[in-house]
């Protein structure tokens, strides 16, 4: 959970990008890293396989500014999307404060999206967290492919498959181009802050 350092006047919160393999989680982080570099203290850490797939996680800390004298630092992580890496995926979820679920809008990925969401539910349960209570935002990625006439899952279908019960905010996005990447991040930050407040009450 979020950690508050009273001496350094700093708040640290952990936001994890979750979703099926090749869905665009790393691309989200790369876009944020490249475009908002002035907010990022260190280099982006990426633990990848030789084939450039995420093996453990990508990570960088992201400053969202000083509020009331406190420096608010959000730690952004991705998980490896491939099914076989569940043990490491679960480790990254430890202490999570907010989740962005990056769904792949390619037609062939419909089942992978659903399986990945089920996997998120199970892994959160491992940490005694309820998917209905954790701050969660959906991002339907790869929407830029519509312009290239690539058939995609309609957002209505993605909503029905993934978000019918959860009823969380969702964004049609393109992590590659940057469409709604900042909007998704902004939303999850505000939801995470609200959740921290309610957990203290």
């Amino acid at each position, binding site marked *: *959970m*979020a*950690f*508050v*350092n*009273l*001496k350094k006047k700093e708040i*640290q919160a*952990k936001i994890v990008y979750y979703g099926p393999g090749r869905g665009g989680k790393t691309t989200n982080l790369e876009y944020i890293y490249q*475009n*908002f570099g*002035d*907010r990022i*203290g*260190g*280099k982006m*850490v990426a*633990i990848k396989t030789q084939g450039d797939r995420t093996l*453990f*996680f990508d*990570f*960088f*800390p992201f400053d*969202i*500014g*000083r*509020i*009331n004298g*406190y420096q*608010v*630092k959000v*730690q952004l*992580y991705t998980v490896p999307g491939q099914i076989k890496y569940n*043990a*490491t995926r679960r*480790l*990254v979820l*430890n*202490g*999570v404060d907010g989740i962005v679920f990056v769904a792949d809008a390619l037609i062939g990925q419909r089942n992978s999206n659903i399986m990945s969401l089920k996997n998120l539910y199970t892994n959160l349960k491992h940490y005694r967290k309820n998917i209905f209570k954790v701050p969660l935002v959906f991002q339907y990625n790869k929407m830029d492919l519509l312009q290239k006439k690539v058939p995609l899952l309609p957002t209505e279908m993605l909503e029905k498959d993934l978000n019918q019960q959860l009823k969380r905010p969702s964004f049609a996005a393109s992590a590659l181009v940057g469409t709604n990447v*900042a909007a998704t*991040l*902004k939303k999850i*930050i*505000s939801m995470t*802050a*609200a959740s*921290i*407040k309610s957990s*203290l009450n």
Partner: protein
Amino acid sequence: MRPTKELGFGLQVLTDMYWITLKDYLKKIQGGDQKGMLSQENLYRIENILEKDLIDKGVKCALLIDMSGNIIASLDSGKSGLDIYSLAALAAGNYGAVGAMANIVEEDEFSLLFHRGKKVNVHFAAILNEYLLLDIFNNGLSLGFLRLIVADAVEKIKHILDSNTDE
């Protein structure tokens, strides 16, 4: 003062809800009596232990982190310029991965986690299953001596963290 003017980029427009939330939150935490934080006094005590018991005895950098990769306290013998946030995230992940491996081979834990480099070494020590003490030291310090001083520091920090939970 509202924070919006200080955030000169895509996130500049924080919602009212977010601002109100943080204002309430910060008001609540001043006493440091909630889970997920330590009182200012306890943080000073921990930093004092890191300095006197570890840095003064030759450790290059000492970090107390939680298992989520958040930094609780950090002390450095000089300006090493280490990216401690990335280091903390990787250390928590590394420790978690080693613990998961231990479970697979039916061990509760591996009692020694240590990485040796040509010049610099990293030592991990768990505290109360929730925290991790990370020590970076060079070859001028022997592993045996380091383990002795770390064990001592761990006991003292454990006592503070325990008392923080009890308060």
